[in-house]
């Protein structure tokens, strides 16, 4: 049991330990790579270990820390919270980040390891800050702050011109999303006069709510991303070094949908319903378009990127179907997708590092030479295609059960993607692992190294755990989110 007397200290420790670790790294000599690795990994693992204490949080208890910050007509507080909803995002962040920091040892050129680890740890703090923020100003600050480490790693540490181009695409697109979010927040706070908005349903009038929710939804759709706001994604995902893309697709892509749960839906429940028809179409379009593009992709990372578009489309569908089953299943799906995407991108990174290409037509038959790698890859691929017993199935199946009750048409369309998911995931696995070997015999060892096995194993173990016992997560979340029963007859427009 958590000693709740020090819960406030614990929250801030978890949020800022990665940043403190990053700052300590600056005092370690650039060339002392053993020290750099030791410090970074200790910090990341300690953050994860400390965050585990939150797993003991009950359904209705939460850990809060508030400090006054800005007084006056637009008041804000430094208010952070871990509750039954946020705890899962915090755990996902600390687990995936620890794995990614460890994985980073393989990639950065030795002389630049320090900066790379510094930025990854800074990225972790911005993510943790975002998922614990209970104040809208704090949320917005982290929302934009996280662009910096991603941009710097992409432009400075990936090395190619394409990566630099991708960095600008990422920054401009997400910056635009952030700007629109800021407009929405200003519009809201102009009425509420406080950024402390959680647990508050402001009385704004239908027209203003409609605009404000639209602004929030746009920013969230860009960040996730959802079709058609995803065009920053292919380049960013394919050009990022594996630890970064694992964190971006595993954790950062949850920021938008988390924002929807924590702020968007509770603040604008009626406007969300007005927007729902359009956003449901966007969800189904993401699901099907992502699945089709994944089947057509010839680049392993691009395939997984598009599969993320499709899988996160299921979560949009789940949230805007407004059924209590689908919304809490959507949270399960978010966590599950985070683990699966991180595992897939890390494993693909190991493969690319060995074989020097991501072209699906250029590799083959790796299972002969690297049976352990093939086994790990198989678990991750099967989880992504929704094999029962793994977390992907639990999320997808519960979402579809929930959405079927309110949106049978869209659910039927989404079901097509379940079949398409089998196609692209099996294509991915088969073209890498089976078939004729296309690599030269002397291509060097392909098999996973011990460190790589250890860092992916916790991700896969959690995938299996959530697949076998989804209730561990799913039983706690329904109370954490506000889902209003389907609107009966009043249209929102009439309130104005």
């Amino acid at each position, binding site marked *: 049991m958590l000693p709740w007397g020090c819960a406030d200290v614990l929250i801030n420790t978890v949020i800022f330990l990665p940043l403190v670790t990053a700052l300590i790294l600056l005092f370690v000599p650039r060339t002392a790579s053993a020290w750099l690795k030791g410090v970074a990994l200790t910090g990341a693992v300690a953050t994860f270990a400390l965050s585990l204490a939150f797993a003991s949080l009950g359904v209705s208890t939460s850990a809060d820390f508030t400090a006054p910050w800005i007084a006056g007509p637009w008041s804000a507080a430094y208010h952070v919270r871990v509750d039954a909803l946020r705890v899962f995002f915090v755990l996902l962040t600390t687990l995936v980040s620890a794995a990614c920091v460890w994985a980073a040892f393989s990639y950065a050129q030795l002389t630049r390891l320090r900066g790379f680890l510094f930025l990854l740890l800074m990225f972790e703090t911005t993510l943790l800050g975002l998922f614990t923020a209970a104040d809208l100003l704090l949320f917005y600050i982290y929302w934009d702050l996280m662009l910096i480490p991603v941009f710097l790693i992409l432009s400075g540490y990936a090395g190619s011109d394409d990566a630099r181009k991708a960095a600008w695409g990422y920054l401009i697109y997400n910056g635009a999303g952030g700007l629109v979010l800021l407009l929405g927040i200003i519009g809201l706070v102009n009425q509420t006069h406080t950024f402390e908005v959680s647990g508050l349903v402001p009385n704004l009038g239908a027209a203003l709510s409609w605009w404000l929710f639209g602004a929030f939804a746009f920013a969230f759709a860009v960040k996730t991303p959802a*079709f058609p706001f995803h065009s920053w994604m292919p380049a960013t995902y394919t050009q990022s070094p594996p630890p970064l893309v694992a964190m971006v697709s595993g954790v950062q892509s949850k920021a938008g949908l988390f924002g929807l749960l924590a702020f968007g839906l509770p603040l604008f429940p009626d406007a969300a319903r007005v927007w729902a028809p359009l956003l449901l179409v966007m969800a189904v379009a993401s699901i099907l378009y992502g699945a*089709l*593009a994944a*089947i*057509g*992709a*010839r680049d392993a990372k691009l395939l997984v990127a598009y599969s993320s578009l499709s899988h996160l489309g299921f979560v949009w569908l789940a949230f805007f179907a407004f059924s209590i089953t689908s919304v809490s299943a959507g949270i399960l799906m978010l966590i599950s997708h985070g683990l699966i995407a991180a595992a897939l991108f890390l494993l693909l990174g190991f493969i690319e590092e060995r074989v020097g290409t991501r072209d699906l037509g250029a590799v083959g038959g790796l299972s002969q030479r690297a049976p352990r790698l093939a086994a790990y890859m198989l678990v991750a691929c099967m989880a992504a295609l929704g094999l029962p017993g793994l977390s992907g199935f639990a999320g997808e199946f519960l979402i579809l059960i929930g959405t079927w009750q309110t949106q049978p048409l869209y659910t039927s369309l989404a079901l097509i993607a379940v079949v398409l998911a089998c196609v692209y995931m099996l294509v991915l696995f088969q073209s890498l692992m089976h078939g004729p070997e296309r690599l030269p015999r002397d291509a060097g060892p392909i098999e996973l190294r011990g460190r790589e096995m250890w860092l992916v194993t916790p991700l896969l173990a959690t995938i299996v755990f959530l697949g076998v016992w989804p209730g561990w997560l799913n039983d706690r979340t329904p109370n954490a989110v506000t889902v209003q029963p389907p609107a009966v007859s009043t249209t929102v427009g009439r309130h104005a």
Partner: protein
Amino acid sequence: MFGNVTSASTNALDWIGIWLLVGAVAKSAQLPLHTWLPDAMEGPTPVSALIHAATMVTAGVYLIARAHPIYDHAPAAAMTVAVIGCASAFVAATIGMAQYDIKRVLAYSTMSQIGYMVLAVGVGAYAAGTFHFVTHAFFKALLFMAAGIIIHNLGGEQDIRKMGGLAKRMPFAFWTFLIGTLAISGVFPLAGFFSKDAILDELQLLGHPWLWAFGSVAALLTAYYMFRLVFMTFFTGAYRGDHEPHTDRSPTMEVPVVILAVLATIGGWLVLPGHDEMSRLLQGAFGDRGILPAMGEINWFVTGVTTFAAAAGLLIAWWLYERAPQVRLRLATTFAPVQRVLFNAYYIDTIYHWLFEVPTLTAASDVAKYVDPEGVGALVAGVARTTTGLGDAMRGWETGYLRRYGLGMVVGMVLVLAYYIFVVHAGAAVGMR
């Protein structure tokens, strides 16, 4: 699990039954979702024997039998099940007559025999369907394992046109394969006789003369294509292959086959009068529907027709392949188009290829290659270009000439002043008045 089915409307139950059937049809390789089964025969023979013959493929039948409370109250869905089963049994048998790959013949025979089971559970003969399920596991696994011995000894050859005369060279494979063939053809007293007879008996009893008629014709076709397989593999003159066959024998290969042969022989005796263990077991699950038609009251008409069908199929195959090959060749020339259609399994695979596979894959590769980078991407790039363009236009003003900046400042100040004087000030003056 199905305690409350009666509270749902018949219409709803019919739809539930239909959707469950779709799943069952795909799993059990029934029309129209059967095309995967023959292709799955690329796997090793023991895998085919276990997964694609005895156990996994029958899961669809099990699903429908388990969900029988739904089908009991959903007459339209149940009838659909029966018709699909009957059609699969018949169509697969016709395809089986024209195949040359030993495992493909067995694959289509599996589809056909599962068709019988689906037919049985569709009309509510759960006991008979489940019984055939059990005996089929024995004789079909036997056939696959025996075929595996042949294929192994021929170095991977599966084409029966390159076999022939193997009865003497591989007597063990021959005798065990023959037992399996007799069993699947429904020859008394082997396992298949009892279970197939039970299904056809029930069709007659429950009043489905058309389903019974098709089922009986399919039984004839089954005997024909299975004995065609036996004759082409083990007789029809000398061995036609390119390589001399080995004659490997090992207990690991043969002991399981012997066990299966024994079961394929005596497996049907579970239901002999006075020892009807099968019904006793199934009554727990299916109630009255779990009781097999009593062997004591044999329906001589049905049993006679079944036995006649088996014998006729055997004799036709023998006549065409052993006695009068010239007749067979003449028939083959006359009916060449028919044979081609059957050999290509009614081109269903080809149709699916063009109907589903090609459009999906084309769309997918177009999306990934053109639509996403050039369509959706271009839209965004267009927005970016507009921004850049604005920037370029603005840059034109940044000339670096101080006097122009000065001019700009003066013009700006004048404009602001003018605005203040004429609009704001005048407006205020108006307001004051």
